[in-house]
């Protein structure tokens, strides 16, 4: 594995049995896992290229236990990797050899549903989908819907600020939270927000969301619930070029329409998805758009006509509106199966996650075709077109070390390209370990130092999820001393880990 993590502390490795015993005093019974066989289940998350068996796994059941575990780790300077369901695509829950994994899977209860105030209080180990299912009977849902929603937990969603196909209209995780309970590394329990908005003071809720498990461990979440749209219809639009499809997306938005979902697929993705899911996609187009309109029936029909007219003007060569719920779901079945479908035509794939200004799409796709030749690998693209979030899937065979190496370099080149055209490294998957070493392409050293000082305010010892997000490890005392003048930092070249 090309990835370098901080060198393990041999002394900590030697204390494994003693640490297990001390943790068992806090979380009795099966809450502490120390057999190698069982630890293996935690060695990776959904970024399976990277693996590391942790020192131990602890599965507390109460906030008091989480606080006590963290306090113990803090006293012993023992590293902690928080983990939800382990569905991170950026290696956010990759363990450390000399650190424990703090799993929140036993925090699996929905504590309160308060429909009158359109919110629910849940424990972090509850799955994203379970929240929506718990309020479905009343016509409500929790809006952010990452594709892993059947498995991923709300705690992980908070850590990664997860998105989904409906987030252009309904927002990502951070726009759909009201309150959190979280525990700092020294065991301090914080409660921020509640069932009200904008309580004043610094926005801890906003800052903790998307902090990738580096600032605190979330133990309770209050989410906003939304009324489910009365109805939804989807349009399938085929275009002779990705330029034309991109222009159509821009024209829809320029017309003042924010669809519930607006997805694009390129030719390789269309063919893979159609072969796998038989969704009825046209195979003779270069780009396919799925535009979903939701709301009241009157509004949906009204907007559907407008979008159809726009698509015709923009040169769509295929246009079909879903007639009934079964057909709408079939349109989506292809898109939702795009990843497994690509998995069928290639032994392995890497899923990238950059966001670009939409106007740069043709340029980015063109460069990617050139890169396919450069790296000798193929790529299929699915794209949250409304918000510019691109998911290139790089096809490779992990059994060939050279292919893995080329795939990783191809991925990095794509992300650099995203930044080059004015975009960002990650739209919804997080930095984790995957994009850690690319942070310098988007941020200069001062930008990163400002972020790391924030880390120091929460976790001065650097014990929570070290090795993630930031490419260079600075001790907090060094950051404090860094000389700042004229926006430039002068500090010694510390080794990359």
């Amino acid at each position, binding site marked *: 594995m090309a990835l370098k993590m901080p060198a393990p502390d041999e002394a900590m490795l030697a204390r494994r049995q003693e640490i297990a015993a001390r943790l068992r005093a806090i979380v009795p019974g099966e809450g502490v896992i120390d057999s190698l066989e069982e630890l293996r289940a935690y060695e990776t998350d959904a970024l399976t290229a990277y693996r590391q068996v942790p020192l131990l796994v602890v599965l507390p059941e109460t906030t008091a236990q989480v606080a006590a575990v963290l306090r113990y780790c803090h006293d012993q300077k023992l590293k902690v990797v928080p983990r939800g369901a382990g569905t991170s695509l950026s290696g956010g829950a990759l363990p450390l050899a000399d650190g424990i994994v703090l799993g929140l899977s036993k925090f699996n209860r929905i504590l309160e549903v308060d429909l009158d105030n359109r919110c629910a209080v849940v424990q972090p180990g509850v799955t994203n989908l379970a929240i929506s299912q718990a309020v479905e009977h009343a016509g409500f849902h929790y809006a952010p819907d990452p594709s892993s929603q059947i498995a991923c937990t709300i705690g992980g969603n908070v850590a990664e600020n997860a998105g989904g196909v409906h987030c252009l209209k309904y927002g990502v995780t951070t726009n759909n939270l009201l309150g959190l309970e979280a525990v700092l590394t020294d065991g*301090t329990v914080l409660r921020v927000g509640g069932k009200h908005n904008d309580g*004043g003071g610094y926005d801890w809720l906003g800052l903790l969301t998307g902090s990738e498990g580096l600032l605190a461990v979330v133990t309770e979440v209050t989410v906003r619930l939304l009324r489910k749209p009365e109805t939804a219809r989807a349009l399938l639009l085929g275009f002779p070029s990705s330029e034309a499809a991109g222009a159509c997306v821009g024209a829809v938005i320029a017309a003042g329409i924010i669809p519930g979902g607006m997805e694009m697929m390129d030719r390789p993705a269309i063919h893979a998805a159609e072969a796998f899911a038989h969704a009825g996609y046209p195979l003779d187009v270069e780009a396919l758009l799925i535009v979903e309109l939701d709301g009241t029936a009157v509004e949906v029909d009204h907007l559907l006509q407008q979008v159809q007219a726009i698509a015709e003007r923009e040169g769509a060569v295929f246009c079909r509106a879903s007639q009934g719920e079964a057909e709408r779901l079939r349109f989506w079945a292809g898109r939702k199966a795009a990843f497994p479908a690509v998995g069928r035509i290639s032994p392995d794939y890497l899923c990238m996650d950059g966001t670009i200004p939409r106007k740069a799409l043709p340029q980015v796709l063109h460069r990617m075709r050139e890169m396919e030749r450069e790296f000798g690998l193929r790529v299929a693209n699915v794209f949250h077109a409304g918000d510019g979030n691109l998911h290139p899937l790089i096809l490779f065979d992990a059994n060939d070390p050279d292919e893995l190496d080329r795939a990783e370099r191809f991925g990095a080149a794509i992300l650099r390209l995203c930044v080059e055209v004015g975009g960002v490294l990650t739209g919804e998957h997080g930095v984790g370990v995957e994009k850690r070493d690319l942070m310098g392409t988007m941020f200069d050293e001062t930008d990163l130092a400002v972020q790391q000082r924030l880390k120091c305010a929460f976790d001065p010892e650097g014990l929570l999820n070290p090795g993630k997000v930031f490419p260079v490890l600075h001790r907090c005392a060094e950051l404090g001393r860094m000389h*700042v003048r004229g926006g430039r930092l002068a500090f010694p070249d510390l080794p990359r880990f």
Partner: protein
Amino acid sequence: MTTLAPATEAELVEAVASANAAGRSLELLGRGSKRAMGRPLQVEATLDLSRFSGVVAYEPNELLLTAGPATPLAEIEALLAGAGQALAFEPPDFGPLLGAAAGAGSLGGAIAVNLAGPRRFKAGAARDHLLGFKAVTGGGARFKSGGRVVKNVTGYDLSKLIAGSWGTLAAMTELTVKVLPAGETLRTLVLLGLDAVEGGLAMTAALLSSCEVSGAAWLPAAQARALRIDPVAAPGSSVTALRLEGPEPSVLARLATLRSLLPKTPPQLVLEPESSRPFWRAVADARGFVGDSRPLWRLTLTPTSGPQVLHALELPEEDTFLDWGGGLLWVTADRSEALLPRLEAALSRHGGAATLVRGPAALRASVHQLPSQPPALLALAKRVKAGFDPKGVFNPGRIYAGI
């Protein structure tokens, strides 16, 4: 007092770095429209940022606008309206409430205090629309965060921290915000004569429906009259107002559904677009409290507790009104010593928070926000402040005493 008015980023860095070196504190000023809000400052100089003004880029199709923080909101709103777009968080204008001119606020000011209008529960607050920014720390370091795309999770979300930080962490030099299509048209359904509890129930019922209500306010008769918007002021009774926005056929269909859902007994009115727009503008700006000089509080609450808190405060009805479907309660009272204990008791019982929007300096210095912050959060605020501004140069004590 000295005023520093840098014209470029380099001049700003120089000004801040020398203040930092000398341990000299600065008041950060954009257009100054909110100077009378928040804890009063005792500083050695003013850092006038008004030259960081003007729209840098507006890309309607990308849903983005980049501008200097001192750009007048009025200028931005006019520009967006020309392309059928708007700032969806409907930034209120508190100028007149604070005895200043209307329309004097800046984009940076709206972000710095995290403003939000009546669409809060549907579209979020300023915090939800700041995508990225450039700024200078209190230590004099130039940095950036976020990006110029609408979806981004690269690094910590410092946009959230900067929004609502009242200029205590960094001096912003450029902001990128998300802009959205403005609703094509709107209507407001008004129920007359409900008391606060009945109004609260009607708002909850409307918000639980699939009618996609984008504004829900209850105003007592005196407040409704003070807005001076004809169809609402004339009847002389309380007003429960529900806003519907979107394409015309959709608005009309939802209006019909909403009318059928709500009790028929109180008389109903429908405000057309030309009276709906100024009505919601006036609700956002709490126009009913303009021209009054009494201390004014803004309480953010669990929505259904709004009417209960209103009653627990034992104030004359005309000195209150509810927005955000009950989640925002405005109250004014001249005798703060009588109000404060009741306010604290109500917040401790029902949850929520209160901010003093208007009041004499002495009162603002002693109670800017309630409830008081727990020690753990205060300690964290102190450490975060020290990370950005180790010598306490920027707006010391503006939010938290001593931070």
